[in-house]
């Protein structure tokens, strides 16, 4: 696991991924006893996994809201379903000045859509706390000498910020201290008016600050001094980090000398409001040396590791738990488990891990314990071993890496139930598919406004085709019927034309007309195209129509004779007799065919 990887995970996943149970919690720290009227007290607002900032409440019952500052921020990583997610926790301190005695309750407040609990607190009439600002006994110079009347701030009061290490390693704890130096012997209600900015570092607020002024020699001058703020910060990235100091305000007791007619030289103290800001500090954060030599980094600090199996018995395909405990001092939020999925044997499937941090913020470091509860599932029965798990730590004080191992565990896995028996057939295909055609409008065809046309148009075309077809059929049968009815007339007309040729003795033309008449009549009557007419189908068709066979024979004989005369020699042909036979046959055929049969 690389720190950079974690950082991008933190920055992006925390915004993309709401994680472990977002919550808002209020609590009133009881350190320092019950505040009296005029005392400063705090309400802490702890946000778990919420990126929104709490709004500073306009009023708090019984007290005046001074302001709100961020007190600490930390993040934790969790491994569920094989990979990492991260969560964050931020605490804000709401600084209040008690104004009216009584018992009050505050909350619930809403941050980022989550509701907090309600807290109650009591304000006593008089303060039971020790005054915050007495000078240390036996060290104060003569108060009547007092400070000189210089302008507010300046050399008579200043804040000095310092860090324990200006060139820390990534994730190394750095103590940021803000110390107040003053020549005033009394300071009242000294509070910060905003939070310091630590860039991209995570931090914890230490309560190890001074509650009373001590003396210190600084740059050759004696001052009253007190540590007013202490933070332990962890840089998350190498490079330059600028720590911007925040403003503080309070009132100082300014002594005025005057002469009283009766008592002589006197001095009186008048409180005056001052503001001050410490210097900014730049940290030059170094990368961890030789990090590429190690496969992983599990923490920065001084730690001890131990492992224990929480489950006593093991069954195939049933989840079991084990615990890794890491104790020590350093950036506890950065401590993580090695890649257990890779180190466990293939028959033990790593499922998820949950971590808990318990920490104690001291004067120069954060101590505590991180517990990882790991859930795993043995895949089948048998005897398996969890090998020693190696943890890679970096000790920033010694600038050295050190490797700690847990002991190995031997597991005897018994027979499990039948559930999840064929899980091993499920595989994950991590190939990517080519994107193909990208569009933002995925229309359903079936609901398209013109979809019905796909049905309507073919039906319309079909109906059209049927109409056209039936009209054509009707038309053709009309024509056929017409022709059939007129067949006789047409034939007689043709025969008359032939008769005309009789007179002109034009034999070829006569037979032309005669044959045309005969074949034409047969074609019309039988509804067969003239080119398809043969003696056979004529005979068949006429026989079907009920024409007696002797008439048929006469017809065929006549046709033979005419064709012989036409295509052969017309000599010996009896034109007139052929003509009369033709007329007679046609008359007879008309009668024979037109008589309704069935």
């Amino acid at each position, binding site marked *: 696991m690389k720190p950079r990887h974690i950082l991008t995970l933190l920055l992006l996943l925390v915004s993309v*991924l709401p994680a472990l149970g977002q919550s808002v919690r209020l609590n009133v720290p009881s350190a320092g006893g019950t505040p009296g009227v005029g005392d400063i007290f705090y309400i802490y607002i702890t946000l778990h996994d919420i990126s929104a900032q709490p709004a500073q409440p306009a009023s708090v019952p019984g007290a005046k809201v001074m302001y709100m500052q961020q007190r600490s921020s930390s993040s934790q990583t969790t491994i569920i379903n094989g990979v990492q997610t991260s969560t964050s926790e931020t605490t804000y301190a709401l600084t209040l000045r008690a104004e009216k005695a009584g018992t009050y309750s505050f909350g619930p407040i809403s941050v980022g859509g989550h*509701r907090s609990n309600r807290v109650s607190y009591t304000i006593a009439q008089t303060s039971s706390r020790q005054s915050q600002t007495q000078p240390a006994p036996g060290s104060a110079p003569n108060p009547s000498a007092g400070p000189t009347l210089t302008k507010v701030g300046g050399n008579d009061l200043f804040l000095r910020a310092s860090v324990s290490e200006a060139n820390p390693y990534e994730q190394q704890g750095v103590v940021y201290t803000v110390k107040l130096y003053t020549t005033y012997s009394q300071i009242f209600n000294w509070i910060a008016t905003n939070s310091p900015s630590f860039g991209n570092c995570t931090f914890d607020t230490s309560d190890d600050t001074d509650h009373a002024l001590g003396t210190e020699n600084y740059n050759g001058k004696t001052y009253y001094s007190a540590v007013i703020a202490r933070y332990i910060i962890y840089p998350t990235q190498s490079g330059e980090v600028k720590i911007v100091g925040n403003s503080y305000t309070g009132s100082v007791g300014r002594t005025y000398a005057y002469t009283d007619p009766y008592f002589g030289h006197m001095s009186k103290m008048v409180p005056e409001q001052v503001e001050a800001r410490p210097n900014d500090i730049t940290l030059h954060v170094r990368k961890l040396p030789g990090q590429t030599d190690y496969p992983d980094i599990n923490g920065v600090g001084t730690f001890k590791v131990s492992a224990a199996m929480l489950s006593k018995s093991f069954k195939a395909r049933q989840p079991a738990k084990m615990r890794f405990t890491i104790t020590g001092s350093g950036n506890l939020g950065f401590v993580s488990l090695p890649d257990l999925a890779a180190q466990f044997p293939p028959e033990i499937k790593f*499922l998820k891990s949950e971590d808990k941090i318990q920490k104690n913020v001291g004067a120069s470091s954060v101590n505590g314990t991180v517990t990882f509860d790991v859930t795993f599932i043995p895949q089948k029965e048998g005897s398996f071993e969890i090998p020693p798990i190696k943890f890679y730590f970096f000790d920033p004080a010694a600038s050295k890496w050190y490797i700690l191992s847990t002991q190995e565990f031997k597991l005897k896995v018994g027979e499990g139930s039948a559930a999840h028996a064929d899980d091993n057939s499920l595989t994950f295909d991590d190939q990517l598919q080519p994107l193909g055609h990208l569009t933002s409008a*995925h229309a359903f065809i079936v609901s398209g406004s013109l979809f019905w046309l796909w049905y309507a148009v073919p039906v319309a075309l079909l109906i059209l*085709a049927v109409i056209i077809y039936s009209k054509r059929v009707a038309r053709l049968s009309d024509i056929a019927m017409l022709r059939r009815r007129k067949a006789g007339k047409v034939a007689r007309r043709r025969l008359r034309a032939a008769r005309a040729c009789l007179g002109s003795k034009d034999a070829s033309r006569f037979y032309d007309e005669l044959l045309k008449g005969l074949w034409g009549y047969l074609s019309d009557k039988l509804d067969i195209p003239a080119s398809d007419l043969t003696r056979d189908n004529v005979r068949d068709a006429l026989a079907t129509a009920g024409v007696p066979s002797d008439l048929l024979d006469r017809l065929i004989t006549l046709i033979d004779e005419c064709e012989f005369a036409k295509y052969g020699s017309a000599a010996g042909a009896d034109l007139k007799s052929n003509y009369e036979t033709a007329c007679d046959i046609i008359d007879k055929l008309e009668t024979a065919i037109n008589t309704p049969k069935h």
Partner: protein
Amino acid sequence: MKHIVLHIAALLLLFIGAAPTLKAAPADYEQAYKKGDYIQAVELLQRTLAEQGSSSALFYDLGNAYSKAGNPGAAVLNYEKALRLDPGNAAARSNLHYTENMVQLANESEVGDRNLDPAPAPLSFTDSIRAGISTFSSNAWAVTSVMLFFLFIGCAVLYLFFSGVALRKVGFFGGGICLVLSLAAYCFSTLSRSDILAEQTAVLMQSQATLLSSPQADAKPVAMPLSSGTKFKVTGTQKADDGTVWTRLYLNSDYTGWLPASYVEIVRVPGLK
């Protein structure tokens, strides 16, 4: 004229010949994914989604990237979206099963020795029929319906315009079958569409959450915590006094309760209507 045609033909041949050697450069997100920078791959894919639109393969790639990055909730959500657009995306279906199995294992590990089973309730008869219908997309059913209708028209033509008993029999019975099938395919298409539009499947996006018995932050928890990636059916919503929206979720008879609406996300493909 011939000259021009020859030129065009030559150009086409050249293009076709060159096509196999023209390979698209691997996209940025592919490189990030192969390098193991899954967060970056997710970001690039989301950007492509916002700028150019979506496809089944895009949602599948997002699902894979989220899965490798450790977000099973977003992975399940995206695999489901991929299947809404293309139910035939076999890889999406199998990866979805794999991820859901991991989620199920995580849920079971929370149960301990209680008598609870965080498996989804079995499908009712109508639900399994609808599931069967949705193995093809609504559009596939619509196209099938139109094709069958064309076949029906063809059979009608056979019946109406041709003589010959065999042909007319084929036309009549074939036409009848085709018409019935076409109607069925049309019904499946509209059913599939209305199912997708009435989508009430929600995926848990929080890494762990416990269902509550009523829509209040201090309500009693129902059963054990559930892991990110668990799929529910939304059975109701309610707005609380302070403005937060709560959804009622159903997994099975043991696991049914309320969660803030921000904890889950309903499967909805943008632009599908």
